[in-house]
C-alpha cells in the first residue's frame, strides 16, 4: 500500500514539474521572460547610450515575437503554428542576446568611468604628495638653517664671554697703568724736590 502511495506521489511530482517546464517553454512565457529581462536591463543601462541602443534592438525583436504570437490564432494548426512558435522562440532568443550585449556595454561604460575617476583621484593624491614632499624639503632646509644659527649663537656667546674677559683685563691693566703713572709721578717729584736737578731717565710704561 505504502509503495503505491510513494509511486503515486512521485508520479504527481513528476507531472507537476513537466507541466511547469512546458508552461515555461510556451511562446507566451518566452515573451514574458523577454519583457522582464528588458525591464531589468533598462534599469541597469541608465544613461549609457550603447546599452540603450542595444535595448532598442531588443525591443524591435520583442515586437517581432509579439507579432508572431499574435498571428497564432485559434484556427492556426500544424506546420504554420509550429513555424510561428519557432519565430517567437527565435525573436525571444534575439531579445536575450541583445539584453546580454546591453549588460556588457553598461558594465564596460561603468568600468571606464571608474578608471577615469581613479585616474583623477590618483592625480590629486600625487599632487598632494608633491606638496607634502616640497614642504618636507623646505622644512629640512629650515632645520639646517636653524642648526647653523644655533651653532653661530653659541660661537657668539663664547666670543662675548671672551670679549668680556678681555674687557676686564683691559680695564684692570688700565687701572694698573694709572697706578703706575701715579707712582711714577710721585717718585719723580720725590727725586726732583730734595737736591740735584739732574734728570734721571724714567722708563716709559706703555
Amino acid at each position: 500500500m505504502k509503495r503505491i502511495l510513494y509511486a503515486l506521489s512521485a508520479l504527481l511530482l513528476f507531472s507537476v514539474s513537466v507541466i511547469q517546464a512546458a508552461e515555461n517553454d510556451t511562446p507566451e512565457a518566452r515573451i514574458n521572460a523577454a519583457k522582464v529581462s528588458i525591464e531589468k536591463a533598462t534599469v541597469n543601462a541608465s544613461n549609457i547610450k550603447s546599452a540603450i541602443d542595444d535595448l532598442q534592438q531588443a525591443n524591435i525583436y520583442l515586437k517581432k515575437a509579439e507579432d508572431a504570437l499574435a498571428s497564432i490564432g485559434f484556427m492556426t494548426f500544424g506546420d504554420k503554428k509550429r513555424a510561428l512558435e519557432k519565430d517567437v522562440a527565435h525573436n525571444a532568443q534575439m531579445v536575450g542576446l541583445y539584453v546580454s550585449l546591453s549588460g556588457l556595454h553598461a558594465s564596460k561604460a561603468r568600468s571606464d568611468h571608474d578608471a577615469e575617476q581613479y585616474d583623477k583621484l590618483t592625480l590629486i593624491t600625487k599632487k598632494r604628495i608633491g606638496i607634502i614632499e616640497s614642504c618636507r624639503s623646505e622644512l629640512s632646509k629650515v632645520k639646517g638653517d636653524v642648526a647653523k644659527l644655533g651653532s653661530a649663537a653659541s660661537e657668539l656667546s663664547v666670543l662675548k664671554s671672551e670679549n668680556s674677559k678681555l674687557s676686564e683685563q683691559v680695564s684692570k691693566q688700565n687701572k694698573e697703568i694709572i697706578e703706575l703713572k701715579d707712582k711714577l709721578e710721585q717718585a719723580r717729584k720725590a727725586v726732583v724736590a730734595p737736591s740735584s736737578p739732574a734728570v734721571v731717565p724714567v722708563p716709559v710704561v706703555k
Partner: protein
Amino acid sequence: MEVLMRRIVAVPFVLLTLMVATAYGAEAPKEIQGRFDQLSERASKLASTKVGEYAKDDIAAARTSISAAKLAQAAKNEKLALQKLEIAEVQLTIAEARTAEKEAAEQATLKRAQLKQQESRLDSFFQEGGK
C-alpha cells in the same frame, strides 16, 4: 486567331517570369553563402586575438550557430539558416563586447590599485607627521 495571339504574348511573359524567379532563387543562397563566409572569417579572426582568450565560450557558441545555419541551408531551410546567422552575428558582437568589458574591468582594477598605492603613501606621510 485571337486565342493564338494571346498564347504568343503569354509564352514570353511566362518565360520571363521563370527566369526572374530562377535568378532570385540562385541569388538567395549566394547571399547566405556570403554571410557564412563573412561570419566564419570574423569568428576565426576574433579567435586569434584577445577575444579568443576572453570570450572563448561566445566564439564557440557563434561557431555552433554558424554550423547550425549550414545544416539548415543544406536542408533547404533558408529561413532557419538566416535566423542562425543572425544569432551568430550577435554572438560574435557579444564576444567583442565581453572582451572590451573585461579589459575595461582590468584597467579599472589597475587604476584602483595605483590610487591605493598613492593613498597609502600619503597616509604614511601623515602618520610620520613633520618628521
